[in-house]
């Protein structure tokens, strides 16, 4: 069995290389982030200061949570264009429950989360049962949630002035109570909790295993006797629930449900996902990567503003960074 031994040692080496590469990927995205932070810090003394770092983190919170939702769907080789308007829709639902109906937070917030789950389940149903490509199903739902949000609100925002403590959900700081030097807002804390939760789901649970398998080879999974339709619906529901969390973070931060916001956020979220190394063709991805991707976007936006780069050039630079990040990733994987 001479040949086998040789083969397997080769393969062993292979897999080590693979693993190194995989870690290297995160390492690279992370180095990119560090590089940007150092660059901006050198360019302006105003950049690397506790308050600004906290601002950057806070600016990441909503987009980061949306990107987490998008990551789950993208790993299944799907895509979710509705994350932005669904976020708004859930914020509006929270507004209706808390303000218009005057219900307490312990009903209003779970209610909003539930609406996110159900909305996600509907997209999942379209994708799994009606066989509608995710791009189309979620493009359609993006418009539906947008219209519904406007219709429910009658065009005006719903304010949360009557719900005590609502603004603290995102802007209060539990950490600041403990370590006053780092008044990291709860919104950021929630982002990291959601990321850890999603990462746990991805790597340690049956659902996570199936998310990767759906993205790698859905038919093989189905022929293994797994009810792929049902699991797909579960994934989209979970993503919907996470969008609802983003909706509550947003609403709490601006103390209102603004029906006009939301469209366009999906592109930022998807950009964060791909900068973080998750492939749009599915089967691969990490939450850590997505968080790094979201941070890169925020750091670039913040840094360029601090350097007073005109806004039109900020847009150009952001577009270029998206392309560059993915190109660097391709280079590393040796695909070019």
């Amino acid at each position: 069995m001479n040949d086998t031994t040789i083969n397997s040692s080769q393969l062993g080496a292979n897999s080590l290389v693979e693993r190194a590469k995989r870690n290297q990927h995160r390492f690279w995205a992370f180095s990119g982030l560090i590089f940007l932070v150092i660059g901006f810090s050198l360019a302006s003394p105003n950049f690397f200061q506790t308050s600004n770092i906290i601002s950057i983190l806070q600016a990441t919170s909503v987009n980061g949570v949306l990107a987490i939702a998008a990551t789950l769907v993208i790993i299944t080789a799907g895509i979710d264009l509705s994350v932005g308007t669904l976020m708004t829709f859930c914020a509006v639902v929270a507004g209706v429950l808390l303000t218009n109906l005057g219900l307490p937070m312990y009903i209003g917030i779970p209610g909003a989360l539930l609406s996110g789950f159900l909305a996600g389940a509907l997209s999942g149903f379209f994708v799994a049962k009606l066989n509608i490509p995710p791009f189309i199903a979620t493009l359609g739902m993006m418009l539906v949630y947008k219209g519904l949000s406007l219709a429910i609100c009658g065009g005006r925002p719903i304010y949360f002035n009557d719900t005590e403590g609502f603004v603290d959900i995102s802007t209060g700081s539990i950490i600041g109570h403990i370590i006053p030097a780092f008044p990291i807002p709860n919104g950021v804390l929630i982002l990291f909790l959601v990321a850890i939760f999603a990462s746990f789901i991805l790597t340690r649970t049956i659902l996570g295993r199936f998310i990767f398998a759906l993205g790698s080879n859905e038919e093989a999974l189905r022929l293994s006797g797994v009810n792929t339709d049902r699991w797909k619906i579960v994934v989209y529901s979970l993503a919907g629930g996470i969008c609802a969390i983003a909706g509550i973070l947003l609403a709490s931060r601006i103390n209102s449900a603004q029906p006009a916001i939301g469209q366009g956020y999906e592109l930022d979220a998807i950009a964060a996902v791909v900068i973080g190394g998750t492939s749009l063709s599915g089967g691969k991805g990490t939450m850590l990567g997505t968080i790094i991707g979201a941070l890169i976007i925020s750091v670039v936006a913040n840094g360029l503003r601090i350097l007073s780069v005109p806004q039109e050039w900020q847009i150009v630079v952001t577009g270029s960074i998206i392309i560059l990040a993915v190109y660097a990733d391709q280079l590393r994987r040796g695909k070019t």
Partner: protein
Amino acid sequence: AEDKPYIALVSKGFQHQFWQAVKIGAEQAAEELGAEVTFEGPDGEGAVDRQMDMISAAIAKKPTAIGIAAIDSQATVPLLKTAQKDGIPVIAFDSGVASDIPLTTASTDNLASAALAADKLAELIGGSGQVAIVSFDQTSQTGIERRDGFVNQIEAAHGDVEIVAIEYGGGDHLKSAEITKTLLQAYPDLKGIFGTNEGSAIGVAIGKKESSSDVVVVGYDSGKAQTDAVRDGTIAGAITQNPVGIGYEVVKAGIAASKGEKLEPHIDTGFYWYDKSNIDDPTIQAVLYD
């Protein structure tokens, strides 16, 4: 419904609260005058061609009169000619059209109102120091006029005040808040910020609060969040136009025109400065919306 007069309004925007307030004014007038109104506007920034499609559809409905807030003052002129040919009176609102077809224009003087904001901000910061503008967009007529009205007045009358940054947040509260926080970071000596519409002003207020800064904020428009912020001092004061009044006047003018009544060439719907001290005055209360 055939006999009821029907006024079709095509605005520049649709989702934002300012436009919704115009819509409310229009609906009030319609109710009082026994008319029917529809209100539409493109939801992307500056979507001139989308607005033209809306105007075409409005004309196809053969309304009693049509009210238009043109995104681009030139592009809509051919369509207005069609309306004129069909005998549909055209009323302009919010900003004018480069044509003599509109029988009247109901609008706020954006340049003058922004100049007032500049005076107030300069006064509030003691006549000197750095200030910044957070605007909603850099291409719309209103956006340009509010920015330029402010800038020109500062340059003309307040030599010691320096405008260090002009940023655009799309009227999105969150984006405007992020911009504000970064500005405060980049310019630690920043004394004042002008938020040029409702979303921008609220965003600036959020950014100010989150940065625990004591920068002076001057806003524009109203809405509950902004009036609250004025009350608690986060926003020192704001310019308000009279959007409800604009909507009301357009419908009223449209019906009058359809009856052949003569109209003034310009209906100035006015603007006001409000702050903590006068916010509860009846004149001010009448033009605030939330």
